[in-house]
């Protein structure tokens, strides 16, 4: 990632001062709240922004009208799901990029999402056969657990492949990730091929990512994994900053390198797996949101990680609003919307910053 840009290049990070970065952190928080309110109040049926206060009041006083029921049973779980999926994926992306010292690393790109998807699809497709005991034992948690272990297994294989005498080779890692993603994709395809028409449609839509099936059990399923990641973020920032210098240098700075790596890998596999399990494959968040944060506030993980959480949640909420309003009463898949909205923005940012982007 080395390059010598001309000296005239714009300074990195418009919000690079200490106070400005705190302002940015608060701004991100406010953005999430605003997006959440919009997402609660905008939808094809039943509840509008204007009637949102009445619906909230109904829930408060315990005299629920139809608007309150829409709010509590449809919109609120969907908003919470969007927040957890968006925050989880964006932070996972930021952590992986820091861990692998490569701005292209992303759970989606290096096959972790595909591994999680394969495990989840296998659980769905074999739900009445081989995986039946698993479904019975873990109930609503079976799918996130399967996706978690699928993502974890993929990450462990990747790290084993890309490791040479103690160092993680990022080039090898990305290439191996592409290969593993292709392998998992084809195995998922075989499972899909063996499915009936209804399952096939479910699987296809699911692979494009969506919050349409939001429900309280799904919120409960993704909650612990994302919260665990977010709760441990403060403990990761210093290690990830140290990793940017190199693993040996991180060790010199007093970081227990192997422990920090294991923690990063486990947490991102868990959060990615859980997000994939409840919302399907939602790409793009994990790579673009940390990029945006680095452009705004510089590469310090003390700001990149919390900022990515807020920005990721906001982006997913906004994309989801668009997904359910653009072709109502039908819905667009969330993953497609994010790619359509985000890819041009991403491209613009890369071009504006000069070849390669640096961040």
């Amino acid at each position, binding site marked *: *990632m*080395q*390059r*010598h*840009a001309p*000296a005239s*290049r714009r*300074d*990195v990070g418009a919000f*690079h001062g200490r106070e400005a970065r705190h302002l940015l952190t608060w701004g991100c928080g406010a953005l999430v709240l605003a997006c959440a309110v919009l997402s609660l109040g905008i939808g094809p049926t039943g509840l509008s922004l204007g009637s949102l206060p009445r619906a909230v009041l109904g829930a408060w006083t315990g005299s629920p009208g139809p608007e309150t029921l829409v709010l509590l049973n449809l919109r609120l779980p969907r908003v919470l799901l969007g927040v957890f999926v968006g925050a989880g994926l964006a932070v996972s992306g930021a952590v992986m990029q820091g861990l692998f*010292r*490569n*701005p292209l690393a992303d759970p989606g790109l290096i096959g972790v999402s595909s591994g999680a998807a394969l495990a989840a699809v296998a659980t769905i497709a074999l739900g009445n056969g081989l995986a039946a005991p698993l479904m019975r034992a873990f109930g609503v948690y079976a799918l996130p657990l399967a996706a978690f272990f699928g993502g974890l297994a993929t990450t462990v294989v990747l790290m084993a492949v890309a490791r040479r*005498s103690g160092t993680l080779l990022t080039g090898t890692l990305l290439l191996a990730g592409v290969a593993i993603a292709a392998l998992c994709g084809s195995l998922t395809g075989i499972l899909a091929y063996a499915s009936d028409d209804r399952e096939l449609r479910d699987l296809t839509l699911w692979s494009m990512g969506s919050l349409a099936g939001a429900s309280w059990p799904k919120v409960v399923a993704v909650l612990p994994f994302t919260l665990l990641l977010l709760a441990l973020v403060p403990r990761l920032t*210093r290690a990830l*900053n*140290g990793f*940017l*210098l*190199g693993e*040996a*240098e991180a*060790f*010199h*700075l*007093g*970081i*227990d*390198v192997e422990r920090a790596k294991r923690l990063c890998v486990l947490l991102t596999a868990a959060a990615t797996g859980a997000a994939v399990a409840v919302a399907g494959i939602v790409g793009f968040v994990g790579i673009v949101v940390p990029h945006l944060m*680095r452009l705004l506030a*510089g*590469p*310090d993980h003390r700001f990149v990680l919390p900022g990515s959480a807020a920005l990721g949640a906001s982006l997913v909420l906004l994309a989801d609003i668009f997904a359910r309003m653009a072709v109502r009463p039908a819905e667009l898949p969330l993953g497609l919307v994010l790619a359509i909205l985000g890819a041009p923005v991403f491209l613009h940012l890369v071009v504006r910053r000069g070849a390669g982007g*640096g*961040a």
Partner: protein
Amino acid sequence: MTALLVLDGVSVRLGHRAVLQQVSHAIPPGRLTVIVGPNGAGKSTLVRVLSGELPPAAGAALWKGVPIAALSAARLAGLRAVVPQAAVLAFPFKVHEVVALGASVPGFGLAGHRRSIERAMAEADIAHLAARTYTELSGGERQRVQFARALCQLFAAQTPEAETALFLDEPTSSLDLPHQSLLMQRAAAQARAGRTVVAVLHDLNLAAAWGEHVMAISGGRLAAHGSPREVLTAATLGSLYNARIDVATMPGSGLPVVLPNAGPAPT
């Protein structure tokens, strides 16, 4: 004064190759020790063993009698800092942020952070680069930033100087002449303050000018050690590098001046 750092029969294998074999030496405390030797002799490996990065296969590197390999990363961070050969950053950190990483070790406390950072940047002559982006700097400027980061770590640790060490792995390879002298002078100042300073150097004249003690490594073994005048002789260097090397004496200072000789190797 007993040595802070002692090598006790250190052997290291990387793959099938014995990189260090039975190296035993007490590194003089409060001095600037220079490690010299041909490429692949094991100089950097020796620094990696001393910094705790690489546990020896046999023998031990000791810090005040305690095996360094047994100390935790966090504990070691308060005892020694390392200037790496070359550090590539994947993301565009500002120079002052890279230096501040040296003070970000937990347990250092926050007192004096800012002063440690500023002092380190001043000593490495990079104060004017503070707001620049690290990835845009030249190789030599990056080396000075890494030097500042290591100094910052030592300053922020607030461990008594006599219990700390500074390791430099070819710290001058990309520096211009004045900055080579400046960096060695600052490293020597740390030694005068009581720290044990160990630098791997390829430039034998720099070793002669700044080294107070020289360790010559060849084929993973300690081939010679002593003062620059004792070790940097035509005979010792000739067998160390297996090449003809001339050594003159600087009039005035009396320091050895090392010159390569283009003739065939001695037999």
